[in-house]
């Protein structure tokens, strides 16, 4: 079934996309917490091919993270309970941000916290730095022993995004939680409160039990599921949000090969993040970019934007194609 469209672009297709106010050179970037800032794999590929670089979520102060075991493998998925260890913002600004800025791609800084003040404080701090293109608000980490994720509630999400919006002019990406009864309501709350884009989504609460030892494997019992197992669910979250709202969406969940990236783009995501796949294939991101490019060439698309939302019903496609959406 390949090659149905006229081959208008045998040359290299344009991979650039607009995600709200952000222009990315390619619609693929790492997922926060699954790449540090790329130093460990810089010898394997040219990091500047990525649409953006994003750090592991920085917290307002140093914290050790969760006790072991922190990771556990299950069928086609990884369960983690890392707990966002952090050396705090000072270390981030000194050692990680300069490296991120040096890469020649967009710089997205992921921030976290336990209170609105935590997020607002970090946002204000980042606002004062040079060379940050956007903030991603991790509202959805399921592994804080201290509190439920903000993104489980539309009200908590709205209030938090509003507080951050007051603290910075930087574009804001709200990273939502997948395990909610009504994702559209929470997505809408984030956008109303001033988010410029959404990251959909984080890990799914999950656990594993050691049947020989008869106790949970993870140190804090439960964690978050990521990897291929979750992709069909997160794809549906993206589909629902794009169907209902004018919100630019970055998809995040189980992207392992270029096919997954294409599925998300066809559903209407404007970019994808790659998390767990980096662990098993440290070259996953350039592989996905190459595969996406080849898909576009094979199908005769000159621009990746031609396929964004293309699996949606015709009546929605025009709206989705608008860069602001």
């Amino acid at each position, binding site marked *: 079934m390949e090659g149905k469209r006229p081959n208008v672009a045998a040359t290299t297709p344009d991979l650039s996309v607009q995600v709200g106010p952000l222009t990315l050179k390619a619609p693929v970037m790492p997922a926060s917490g699954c790449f540090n800032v790329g130093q460990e794999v810089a010898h394997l590929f040219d990091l500047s091919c990525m649409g953006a670089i994003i750090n592991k979520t920085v917290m307002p102060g140093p914290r050790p993270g969760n006790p072991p075991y*922190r990771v556990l493998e299950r069928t086609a998925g990884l369960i983690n309970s*890392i707990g966002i260890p952090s050396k705090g913002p000072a270390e981030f600004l000194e050692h990680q941000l300069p490296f991120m800025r040096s890469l020649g791609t967009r710089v997205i800084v992921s921030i976290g916290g336990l209170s609105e003040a935590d997020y607002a404080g970090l946002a204000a701090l980042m606002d004062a730095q040079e060379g940050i293109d956007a903030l991603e608000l991790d509202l959805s980490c399921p592994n804080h022993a201290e509190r439920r994720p903000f993104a489980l509630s539309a009200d908590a999400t709205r209030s938090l995004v509003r507080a951050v919006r007051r603290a910075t002019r930087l574009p804001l990406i709200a990273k939502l939680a997948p395990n909610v009864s009504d994702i559209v309501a929470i997505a809408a709350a984030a956008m109303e409160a001033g988010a410029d884009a959404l990251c959909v989504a984080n890990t799914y609460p999950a656990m594993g039990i050691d049947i020989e030892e008869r106790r949970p494997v993870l140190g804090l019992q439960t964690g978050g599921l990521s990897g291929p197992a979750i992709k069909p669910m997160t794809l549906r979250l993206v589909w629902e949000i794009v169907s209902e709202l004018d919100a630019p969406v970055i998809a995040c969940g189980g992207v392992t090969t270029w096919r997954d990236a294409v599925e998300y783009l066809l559903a209407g995501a404007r970019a994808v993040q790659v998390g767990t796949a980096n662990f098993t294939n440290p070259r996953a991101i350039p592989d996905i970019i190459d595969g996406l490019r080849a898909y576009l060439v094979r199908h005769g698309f000159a621009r990746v934007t031609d396929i964004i939302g293309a699996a949606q019903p015709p009546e929605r496609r025009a709206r989705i194609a608008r860069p602001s959406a």
Partner: protein
Amino acid sequence: MPATPANVPWHMVTGTVAAAHLDAAGYRRLVVHAPPVAAACGPGQFVMVRAPEWGMLLLSRPFDVYRTDPEAGTLEILFKVKGEGTQRLAALRAGDPIHVLGPLGRPVPLPQDGRGVLLVSRGAGVSPMVRIAQECAQRGIRARALVSAASRERLVGIQDLETLGVTVHPLTDDDPAALRPVQILSGWAAGGDWGAVYVCGSRRLARAARDVCRAHNLAGYVFVEAHMACGFGICHGCAVPVRPGPGNPTGQVAYALACVRGPALPIEEAVLD
């Protein structure tokens, strides 16, 4: 002792199984042709490996490197079948492809002042000891090994250690006449000129080694246990608690990433209780 060396860039290659052995007591040994990894692999480093047919598994599995032959371009790993990953690795035959990341972690430092080393292990924990012994043989460092197992039939790696010039003391749980590990190690430490102790595969042995290091002021290194998702520092999954000290100045709860700070930690940093 020099400081622990830093991490060096590792390789991502598809190697080939050069040979698959069934050693003593059900231990499997794979000889893997992966020249860049074999060439770069220092003592105490590990690899993440995965068979092409991996079923519904996702993650590669970590194994200490048993031995390298840079000229042949090979490295070896030693393991027992535990779950599905090791089962699939055990099914590999000469000629089969195998995915390898490595060398990972930091090499262990070796004495540079002519003093010898003590190698203490149990079960598959002998694996990094053989690689350390190999390095010692090359550098002319004396080595003595305590190799422990539940019973005589379960001992593994002894001959390869001896071939490398190591004096090996086997110790089995079923031997009623045996001295306790701490007695043996104390005796050794008191009677010779040793620079460092390395221990892998048993907390009990690690505690014994730690006590002996303290009593005799020796450097000690313990291979720690962790579940690993990546093996090269980006998942933060392999955290192990560390005690107050240079690696943990505040004295609060703190963790080190076993894959990039280890797999062997200075014995006073590791939590062994």
